[in-house]
């Protein structure tokens, strides 16, 4: 499946958001995820099915002002 992950096109076999995070080697409870401009809560990632060309944002804490 073709996905746009943090702005980059990638081909990934995952079918749910949780599987995608595992495939990309993301870990920890501090991640925020959005699919096609909508927040997907961490407790909903197991059930969230991905579709071809979904735009996925994965954000983490960073320094800020």
């Amino acid at each position, binding site marked *: 499946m073709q996905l746009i992950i*943090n*702005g980059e096109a990638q081909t990934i076999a995952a079918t749910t958001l949780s599987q995608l995070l595992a495939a*990309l*080697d*993301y*870990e*920890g409870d*501090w*991640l*925020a*995820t*959005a699919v096609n*401009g*909508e*927040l997907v*809560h*961490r407790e909903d990632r197991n059930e969230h099915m991905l579709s071809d060309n979904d735009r996925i*944002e*994965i*954000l*983490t*804490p*960073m*320094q*800020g*002002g």
Partner: protein
Amino acid sequence: MLDLYGSQIASRLLLGTARYPSPAILTEAITRSKTEIVTVSLRREMAGGRNGGAFFDMIRALGVHVLPNTAGCHGVSEAVLTAKMAREVFRTDWIKLEVIGNHDTLQPDVFALVEAARILTGEGFQVFPYTTDDLVVAERLIDAGCRVLMPWCAPIGSAAGPQNLSALRSMRAHFPDVPLIVDAGIGRPSHAMIVMELGFDAVLLNTAVAGAGDPVAMAEAFAGAIDAGRQAFGAGMLEPRDMAVPSTPVIGKAVFA
């Protein structure tokens, strides 16, 4: 104590966490400044989230309040989504709402800001809006549910200091009961002291500290200036006048001629 959405805060210095020479210097600056609120951000990161996790662990270990921002957002939907993602990560309803309207000045898009603030307060967020010193915008933000206002005093990172003292003074007079935090544009401790002497409740700093030759010493210097300005405001200052007033009594002066 400063009351921000029900949290009682002793320090009137809020510190950003960006652009420090090292994590150790950032940690030391936070500790020595005695700040109780630090601002943080959310960004894409490809290292499996581990860099972000390490940063978050460091901030959590300091035991301070975390104020996530929506820095760099240019529209309502982008800012609202970023705020929701920040709540997911940082587990706080606080959000420093930035909606930028101009690339060169990083001036807030106040129309989008008010709209985003209304949406977010409706979803339970406690919004700290980064705004201009415009009174009508400030009223709209209050109408939208904001209980704190954060006017700029000069463009972000400019270090230019307060550019419009009369506007800041008006804002203080019009909103006597709203916590007012000067955000953006402070360059040196004397700038911070000036706005505190005007009666502002707190100052948010980042570049002025992070970019200093010795950020830790500068954080302490700002903390002292902010305390002094606050104390002076409470003590009541003299108004300037044109003519001299002798400070030593004239009565009882010896006559030698």
